[in-house]
Structures are given as C-alpha cells and as structure tokens.
C-alpha cells in the first residue's frame, strides 16, 4: 500500500479490498517503523484518526464520496486543527490548542480525508532545511545525514518515506517546492489566493500559500481539487471557477511553449542539477513542446526584495506571540515589559529572531521608504517581468534548487541558506503557481524540476508537469536510506 498513489488507494477502498482503518493502521505502522530515524512527525494523532474515519469507510465495499475519502494525510504543524496542539515547531506555542481549523484541512476532512498527524517544519516556516525547528530536525529519507529541505521538511519527508500518501505544506519563498525537490516528491504551490489561508499561521501574508506534497502530479491535482476555492474567511482568497484539474492531465503538450529564463542559468548551480534539467527540457521537446529562452531581467533583485518583505510582514504577524492569551509565558516577570521580552526571547529560535529584527528594521521610521517600500516596488517589476514572459510562453521551467539536499550544519550562515531559494522566491513575489517534479538524481540525491505557470492556470501547469512525469522515469525510484520501503 505504501507508495500507492491516491487513485490506486481510492480504487482499493471503493472496491472494498481495503478499509480506511487498514490504511490508518498501515500509516501508523510505517511511522512506528521508521520515523524514529526520519523524525518527520511532531505529533501522531492515531486515536483521532480512527475516530474521525466515518463508519462508512470502516465498512468494506462502501462507495467513497471523493478521491480523498478515507485516505490518510499529514498536515504541516503551522496549520491549525481544532483540538489538536499546533506548535509551528516553536517553543513559544508549546501546548497551544486552537479552537479553529484551517479551511484547507477542514475541506479535506469534510471530504473524509484522515489526518494522521502534524509534521515538522522550520520554526514558523522560516528556513530552508527544517534545522530551525524548535524541537528537532527532520532527516532526508534518501540520506539521513542530509536535510529534507524546508520549511515543509516534515511534509516532504513523510511522503518520501511512505508514511502518508500526501501531506499539506506551506510555501512562502519555496517552502513546498524546495523540500519536495530535496526529497524526490512532487510539491505544488498554487496561485496566491487560490487556496484559503484561514488557519495557516501567518509568516508573510502576501506570500504564503498552502499546497500539497505528493508522490505524483496526479495526486497533487487531486488534493488541489479538494482544497482550492474561495473562502469567505480569507479576504485574499479569490472568487474563480475551479476547473477539473484531473481532466486536464491529458499527457498532451504538443505545441506547449516552454520558457527557460536566461538569468536563472547564469547563476551557480551544481553540474548534476544543470544536466538533469537540460535532460528534462529535451524530454519536453520530444513530447512536442517548444522550448525557448526568455528574459526575467529583475531576477537578481528578487532575493533582496524577498528578504525585506517577508521578514517585515513576519515581524508584524509574530508580534501577537506575547505570552498574554496563549502559548508559553516567561515566569516571574517583574513587569509587563520584562514579560514580553523574556517570553519572546526564550520562545523564539535564532532564525526567527533574526527575521523579526530585520523586518522591524525595514519598517521602522526613517527606513520604511528605503527598504520595505522599495522592495515592494521591485516586486512590481518582477511581476511585470513574468507578465511579459507569459505573453510569449505558457510555462517557465528551471531547476527548483541550485543543489540537491545538503548536509546538516553545512549552511550555517544565514545568507548562504537564503541562496537556496533563488529560483523559488521570484514565484512567490509574483504570486504565480509553480510545481516541483523530480527529474533525476545527482550522486544518488533527487533533483527537482520547477515549472511555473500563469496566474490561475494550474491546469496548464499540471498538464505539463504530468506529461513530463510520465516519461521522466523517476516514478519507480525510492529512497534507500530507510532500507526496503515499498
């Protein structure tokens, strides 16, 4: 069962060969067996899972309501689930139990999806390796001495290790796509506004999106179908008709115009990464796509703009963690000011503090125009670059990351860590949909191919990614670090 895609599991369930309880048990067993090494989960909610699966699915032969019914999934621990402790991998939220559930999770659970547990992340989604988790790091199932990527490292690792068929993650600067690339799974960041952010603990409000990490593009389409769509509780969610994403997976990319950004390939990337991506482009050509170079002239400013905008919004979003109404509070503080400072200093890890400080600085009196406002203006230019490019092409292709998964402790310097996100960040700044699909190995480690689409054109994006996936030959590969994983 492990390694089965959602469709296969759905068929097993609806034809009565498996029950949801079987799937839950299997998930829990896999976690029991190998999560001691991977450490993807912060909390396993087994009892709740059994209680949640409706009686209908417990009985064999019952027709499933939707693709997602009865199928286990994991949720990144920055997604609130009512009654389930949600920590954002931060000590400051230890013990916090939300009275509300994130819309994306609610939609899946309403469709009968079964939450198996909350998975690890970089604290408050700030990081690219999950090393910043306030509790413990997660390890890459392909090589346990290496990071799974971040911030949705737990989500990617849980899927790669076969603990769950899919997981929800969040992506602000690459946090779904980059760990997907490092762990050899598929990771989709939808167009900004397509999936409700209600219940996603905010990091950078104008950049955050929730999305699926899965074993296949088809599975990503299935999960997206279940979570996309306007939500009255999120003023930034957009009222658009949700197409049938599955139906768009025709395998046909004849005449598809694929753009390759010159500027991306002028940066440093590992040789193996470059080669795998070039091979992927060849494969697309073979399938009938037309590949051509495009220019995104303001690419070089994207990282700077992002590392001012995201921390600025974060500094405001994280100010509510003050020890007053929830979370941890420093004891015996003599006065209010001390209480605030001690609570926040003890509760936040160093990366979170760094970003809060940069963000506060970028917004502060005298610096707002030079930093935050300027960065938002540059953001407009980056968006315009993409708009111009999409007048000529239908999807843009690049590596997801410049290197495959690195070792723990290798990127100790913050700035070096930030450079991981060089291909993924511009996408968030422009609010576009993007997907990372495995495209081969370099020295035994997965390499990710990123495809970027037009706003709200997930159908073209998924079609292209799916067509490529069918010929990529990656589907049969599995992480070997955990021994024989089916």
């Amino acid at each position, binding site marked *: 069962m492990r390694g089965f895609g959602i469709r296969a599991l759905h068929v097993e369930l609806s034809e009565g060969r498996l029950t949801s309880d079987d799937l839950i048990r299997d998930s829990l067993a896999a976690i029991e067996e190998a999560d001691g090494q991977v450490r993807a989960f912060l909390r396993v909610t087994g009892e709740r899972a059994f209680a949640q699966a409706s009686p209908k699915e417990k009985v064999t032969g019952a027709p499933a309501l939707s693709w997602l019914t009865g199928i286990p999934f994991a949720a990144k621990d920055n997604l609130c689930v009512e009654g389930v402790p949600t920590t954002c991998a931060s000590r400051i939220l230890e013990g916090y139990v939300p009275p509300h559930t994130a819309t994306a999770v609610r939609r899946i659970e309403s469709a009968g999806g079964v939450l198996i547990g909350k998975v690890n992340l970089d604290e408050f989604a700030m990081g690219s390796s999950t090393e910043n988790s306030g509790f413990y790091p997660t390890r890459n199932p392909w090589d346990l001495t290496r990071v799974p990527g971040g911030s949705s490292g737990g989500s990617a690792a849980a899927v790669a290790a076969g603990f769950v068929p899919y997981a929800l993650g969040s992506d602000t600067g690459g946090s779904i796509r980059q760990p997907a690339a490092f762990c050899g799974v598929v990771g989709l960041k939808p167009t900004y506004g397509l999936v409700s952010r209600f219940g996603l603990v905010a990091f950078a409000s104008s950049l955050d999106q929730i999305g699926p990490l899965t074993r296949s593009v088809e599975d990503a389409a299935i999960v997206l179908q279940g979570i996309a769509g306007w939500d009255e509780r999120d003023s930034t969610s957009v009222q658009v008709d949700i197409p049938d994403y599955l139906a768009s997976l025709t395998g046909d990319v004849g005449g598809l115009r694929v753009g390759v950004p010159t500027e991306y390939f002028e940066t440093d990337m590992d040789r193996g990464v470059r080669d795998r991506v070039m091979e992927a482009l060849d494969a697309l050509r073979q399938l009938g796509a037309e590949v051509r170079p495009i220019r995104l002239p303001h690419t070089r400013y994207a990282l700077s703009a992002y590392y001012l905008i995201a921390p600025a919004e974060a*500094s405001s979003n994280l100010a509510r963690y003050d020890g007053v109404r929830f979370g941890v509070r420093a004891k015996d503080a003599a006065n209010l000011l001390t209480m605030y400072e001690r609570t926040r200093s003890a509760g936040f890890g160093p990366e979170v503090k760094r970003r809060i400080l940069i963000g506060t600085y970028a917004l502060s009196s005298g610096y707002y125009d030079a930093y935050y406002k300027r960065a938002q203006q540059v953001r407009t230019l980056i968006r315009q670059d993409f708009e111009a490019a999409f007048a000529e092409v239908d999807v843009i292709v690049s590596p997801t990351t410049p290197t495959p998964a690195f070792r723990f402790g290798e990127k100790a310097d913050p700035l070096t860590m930030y450079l991981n996100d060089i291909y993924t960040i511009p996408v968030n700044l422009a609010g576009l949909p993007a997907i990372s699909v495995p495209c081969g190995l370099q020295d035994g480690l997965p390499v990710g191919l990123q495809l970027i689409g037009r706003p709200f054109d997930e159908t073209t994006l998924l079609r292209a990614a799916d067509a490529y996936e069918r010929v990529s030959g990656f589907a049969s590969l599995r992480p070997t670090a955990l021994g024989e994983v089916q």
Partner: protein
Amino acid sequence: MEFETVIGLEVHVELRTRTKIFCGCAVEFGAAPNSRVCPVCLGSPGVLPVLNEEALKLGIRAALALSCEVRLSSKFDRKNYFYPDSPKAYQISQYDEPIGEHGCVMIAGTSAPRSIGITRIHLEEDAGKLTHSPFGDASLVDLNRVGIPLIEIVSEPDLRTPDEARQYLEELKSILQYCGVSDCRMEEGSLRCDANISLRPVGQTTLGTKTELKNMNSFRNVVRGLEYEQERQRAVLLAGGAVVQQTLRFDEATGTTIVMRSKEDAHDYRYFPDPDLPRIELTQAYLDARRAEIPELPAQMRARFEQVYGLPAYDSLVLTSTQGLARYFDVAASQARDPKAVSNWLMGDVLGYLKEMSQEIDTQLMRPEQLAQLLRLIDDGTISTKIAKTVLRDMMTSGQDASAIIEQQGLVQISDEAALREIAERVIAANPKSVEDWRAGKEKALGSLVGQMMKETKGKANPQLVNRLIADMLRE
C-alpha cells in the same frame, strides 16, 4: 501679553453596527468579559480579518455628512505596538489614505458662527479594556471591545475656546446621531475625545507648544479640562517659562491635569499596508447611495425652523439637539397655529416630564399631532394652561388624545359665565373677610378669592374669566 488659545480635538466614535469590523462577533454593551470574542478578534494564530460592509457604509456616510472629500480608493494599514489590550499587537487602522479629508462643521462660535475644519476621518478597530486587579500587582484584560468599528475624526486646530470645543462636540454628536452612524454616548464610551491645546501670542501665526489631554469622559469635563489647561499654560508663559509638550490626564475629582507616566519609547508604529485586506475601491454610485442616506442634518433643520417657523436661534438649537426631538417638533409645528408655542411646550414641560420619567421623546407615548391638538384646545379655551400641563403628562404616559382625557376626567374649562357667576356669589358670600380686606384696599384679597374659586371648580374655571367676574362683582 494677550494670548490666543488654539484647540484641536481627536474624537473616536463607535459605529452602530451589529457586529465587529473584522469578524462576526456581536457588538454588545455590558456583556460578560471575553464572551463576545472569537479566534479572529482574539488575534489567534492563523486568523484573518474580513471587513463588515455596514461599518464601511457608516464610515463613508459619516465622512460625507461631515463634508469631507471621500477617497474612491483607500486602504487599511497596520499600526504596530505592544499592549495587552491589543491582541494582534497591531491595530488595523488607516494611515496615509483615510476615507475622508478636508471636511468641516459649523458651530455657533463665540461671537459669530464659525467653520471648524476636519482634517481627516478614518476607519479603525477598537482595542480591549484593561482593569486593575483588586488582588496583587496585576491587570486584567477583557477583549470584548476589540474589533468594534470606530471612526477617528481629527479636527483642524481651529477651535479657540473650551466652549467652542463643547459646541463642536455637540454638533458632531448631533450630525452623527442624525445619520444613524452612532449613538455618540460618552457615558457608554461610544464617543471619546482627546484634545490638543496650545497658546500663542495674539497675532502670531505659528502654533505654540501643545499638550495632549486625555481621560475626559463627558462634554463638561472636556470644557473643565481645557479651561484648566488653558490657564495653566497661560501662567507658565506669563512667568516667562516654556510649555513642555506632554500628555496629561484630566483628573475629574480635582479638575486639574496631571502628567501621565511617559511611555518607554516614543512610538514608532511602523505603519505598512495590511496585506490581509484588499484596498477599498468605491464607485460614484456607492457614494451617491451613501449621500442619499443622509437625512436633513441639524444645521439644515435649524435654518428651516428659523425661516419657516420663525423660531429664534436658541429654540432651534435646543430642538435639534436630537433628531427625534427635531422631527417631533417639525410634525407638531406643521399642524399647530403657533409654532413658537409648540417650541415652548417642548422645551419646557415636555422635556421636563421626559427627564422626570427617564424617557426619550421617542419612547413616550404622545404623538406630535396630539400635542398640536392639545395646544388648539388651550387656544380655543376648552382647557386652561394649568390644566393642560397635567393633561400633557397623562398623554405622555397613556398615549391618549387630549380630548379623551379631558372628557374622562371632566376637565373641560368652565367658561359659562352664568355658571361661574353662581359659584362666584357663593365664594364671595363664604369669604367675608377677604371681601372686607379688598374693600380696605388690599389687592391680594382678590387673588385669594380667585384661588378659592379655582379650588371650588377643581381648577377648571377659566382663570381669566374668573378674575374679571370677581373683580366686577366686588365692585357691584
């Protein structure tokens, strides 16, 4: 050295919506602590604001009623600061693109009517309430008030006396109340006022150093606070000193202003556009619809009462203090022979009874047409003014017509001369001493006989007639 006082007011008004500005919690005065909160207004992790359409409508209506230029495109900004009554550690407000600017309000002024400028009006959310714990060194936080929709109205420093400040507040309150935007009750906190005040030598155009006054919880205290601070600053300046820019708290008990503890750091609110809320984009049609919702405003009603009904300015000011009273007067006066009489009755007896009964003009039961009818009955002599006053009271508590009450209680004024003559004869015969006193030249004795007669007739005798009759009969 003559000084000129310069005052500007910053007023916060709670909008009359059913729910909060960014979530669906009900707005309710006096609910148990933290019983009107939800994850959104609690500032829980992962929550998002959604704008209340009624709050936007009322805010725009207010801006238009205050003659502001309304922006067709504006936005919300985050005002970042840490305080226990602010759960998100930022307040959603408007910084550089408020919904309205450059408005004005007319006041009667000190010697002549004046226009007071309104710099800006913007939408924002309210904060919670802090109280001191009776046990130990702690504060308690009730977040029911968090998220109640407010408009902040900032005036130009155009006011010149504490009384003008009061006039401005009264007029602002009237306008907003007429528009249905807010109840504007300072005692309930739905209208709050902070003031900035400075002095400068007469003739100087630059502003002097100002101080900010807070904690004035009634119009009267605003006046008291400004009067005290005005004199305090004058004394400092006359002594050759300089006014220190600081925030002062008005102390109600002593009537003085006291320096508030200075905050740890000057506030850097780090305003930036709130990414969770779309821009507010309005159309002309939307503004036109809001404008159409604005009723005849107090100033317009006053002008009309003065021109059409010939009322003096004093009357029109009192009668337009609330929309209910103004409309009541309007209906009654339109059906009465003498609008000034209607005004007198309303300003006098009616308001008096309302106060006594703890009622409002709209909660008592007498309709304006009924008041007009009552005045007609006095006019045509059916009842005396004195009797009318008690009938009025009954009308207000029962809602019955004057004629019905008069009939039930047999209060028709006795104007039948023959009947009165008969009673007068009896009274005169029964009070020989008074007659003797009158004959001796004591004019008061006449009054005493008239009084007896009124008593005999239970007040129903027509007093003018009685006076004439007794006087005539005594002379006979």
